[in-house]
C-alpha cells in the first residue's frame, strides 16, 4: 500500500522535473559508461600482464631435438648461473599440445602447420627483477642455446600502463562522480521545491520525516536505475563488438570473455549508478527538509 504510494509519488516527481530528469539521466549514463570503460580496460590489462608472465623469468630455446642427457646437463648448467632460482624444462611436444589446446576453435592450426614448429624451452626463474637482464645475457652466451627471450621489458611497460590507466581512471571517475552527484542533487531539489505545499501538509498532518523522504529517494533510484541500464547496454554492445574484432585480428591478446567476470563488472557499474541516485537524493531532500517546519 505505502510502497505503491511512494512509487507513484516518485514517478510523478521524475516526470514533473522533466528536462532536469533527462539531464541527470544523461550525465549519470555518461559517468557510468566512462567508469565501466576504465573498469574493463583495467581488468583486461591486468589479465594481459599476468599472461605475459612474471617479470622474473627468462626463456631459453633450443631448436633441435635433444635427448634426456643433454637436457639434464643443460638444466644443471643453467641452474648454476648466479641469480637463478629455478629452471623448468618444457619439451617441444608438450608446448605444441598446450598451444593447440589454447587456440582450439580460434585458429585451425592443423590445416596450416602439420609439424610442430616449436622449440624446446627452459623457463628460468630469476631471484630478483634486476638480475633478469644479466642472467639472460649469460644464457645467450651458452653455445647450445639458440635464442633467449625475457618478458621483463614488456611486462614492465604493461604494468606501467596499467598503473597510469588506473590513476587516470581514478581521477576521471572521481570527478565524474562528483559532477553526477551535483546534478542529481539539483534534479531532486527541483522536485522538492515544486512540492513544498505537499511537504508542508505532510508535516502538519504528522507524517514522519522518513516517510516524507521516501518518494524523493525512490526518484533518485529511478534516475540511477535508468542511467545504469542505458550505460550497461552501451558497455555490453561496444565491448562485445570491440573484443570480437580484437579476437579476430589479434588472437594472441588475452581478453576477458568469461560471462561471470563481465557480469560482475557490469553489476559494479549498475550498483554505482543506483548508489549515486540514492546518495544524491538523500543529500538534496535532507537539506530541504531542514529548512521547512
Amino acid at each position: 500500500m505505502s510502497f505503491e504510494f511512494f512509487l507513484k509519488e516518485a514517478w510523478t516527481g521524475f516526470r514533473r522535473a522533466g528536462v532536469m530528469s533527462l539531464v541527470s539521466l544523461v550525465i549519470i549514463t555518461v559517468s557510468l559508461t566512462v567508469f565501466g570503460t576504465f573498469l574493463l580496460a583495467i581488468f583486461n590489462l591486468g589479465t594481459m600482464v599476468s599472461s605475459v608472465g612474471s617479470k622474473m623469468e627468462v626463456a631459453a630455446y633450443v631448436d633441435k631435438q635433444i635427448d634426456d642427457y643433454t637436457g639434464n646437463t643443460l638444466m644443471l648448467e643453467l641452474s648454476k648461473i648466479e641469480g637463478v632460482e629455478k629452471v623448468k624444462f618444457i619439451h617441444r611436444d608438450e608446448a605444441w599440445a598446450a598451444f593447440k589446446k589454447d587456440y582450439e576453435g580460434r585458429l585451425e592450426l592443423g590445416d596450416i602447420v602439420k609439424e610442430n614448429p616449436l622449440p624446446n624451452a627452459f623457463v628460468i626463474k630469476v631471484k630478483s627483477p634486476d638480475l633478469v637482464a644479466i642472467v639472460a645475457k649469460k644464457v645467450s652466451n651458452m653455445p647450445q642455446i639458440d635464442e633467449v627471450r625475457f618478458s621483463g621489458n614488456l611486462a614492465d611497460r604493461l604494468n606501467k600502463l596499467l598503473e597510469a590507466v588506473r590513476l587516470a581512471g581514478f581521477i576521471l571517475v572521481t570527478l565524474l562522480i562528483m559532477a553526477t552527484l551535483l546534478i542529481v542533487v539539483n534534479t531532486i531539489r527541483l522536485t522538492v521545491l515544486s512540492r513544498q505545499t505537499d511537504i508542508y501538509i505532510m508535516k502538519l498532518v504528522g507524517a514522519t520525516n522518513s516517510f516524507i523522504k521516501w518518494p524523493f529517494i525512490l526518484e533518485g533510484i529511478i534516475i540511477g536505475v535508468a542511467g545504469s541500464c542505458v550505460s550497461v547496454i552501451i558497455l555490453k554492445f561496444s565491448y562485445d563488438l570491440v573484443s570480437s574484432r580484437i579476437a579476430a585480428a589479434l588472437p594472441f591478446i588475452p581478453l576477458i570473455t568469461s560471462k561471470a567476470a563481465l557480469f560482475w563488472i557490469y553489476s559494479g557499474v549498475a550498483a554505482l549508478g543506483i548508489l549515486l541516485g540514492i546518495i544524491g537524493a538523500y543529500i538534496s531532500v535532507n537539506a530541504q527538509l531542514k529548512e521547512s517546519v
Partner: protein
Amino acid sequence: MIALTSVSKVYPNGVEALSGVDLYIGKEEFLFVVGPTGSGKSTLLKMLYREELPTSGQVSVDRINIGELKPAQVPFLRRNIGVVFQDYKLLPLRTVYENVAFALRVLGASRTQIRRQTTQVLDLVGLLKKANCLPGELSGGEQQRTCIARAIVNNPPLLIADEPTGNLDPATSWEIIQLLDKINKRHTTVIVATHNKAIVDGMRKRVIALESGRIIRDQQLGVYSNVL
C-alpha cells in the same frame, strides 16, 4: 488541555510577536482569538503545533512541554492537532477525496480505513457529492470545507483555524463557523483566530483579545470589541 506560561516570542529580525502570555484552554472549549493584524494571533497558534518555538516561557499541550519535544516526536504531536488555513493549502492536482485521504495515507492507514473515514468526514462537511472535483472547480467555501475535512479526518482532539473565513463572504463565513461549532460539539477543542466581528459577536464564545503581543482581554461569552 493547553497551557501557556509567560510565553514570549522574538523573531530573528527583532520583532516581538508575543510577550509574557499566560493562557489556559480547557478540553472541548471553543475559543476565539481576536486582535488587529500583527498582534500575534498567528504566532500564538503556530506555537501550539510547533511551527514556532517560544523564545522564553512554556507551551504545553496535553501536559507535554512542546519545547522539550525531540524532532522525531513532533509528527506524533501533530497527529493530535488539525490545522485549517485562510488560503486552504489544498493540493491543486488532487481531487477533494484525495486531498482528504492524503492526510490519512501519510499516516499509513489501511485502504479500508481511509475509505471509511474519508467518506464519513466528507459527509460531515457536506462535500460527498463533490468528492471527485479538483480544488479549482470548487467555491471558496467548499475549498475551506475540504481543508476542514482534511484537518479532522483522523479525529484529532484539537482543531486550530487561522482566519478560516478571511477569504469568504459573510453568508459562507457563517456556514464555516457553524461547521466548526458542530465539530466542537463532537468533543473537539476548537481555537479560531479571526478578524470577523459579526461572527464573534454572533457566537458568544470565550474571546481572547491580543494587542502588540499581550492578552488585553479574556472574556467568557465574549464579543469582538468592548469599545462601541
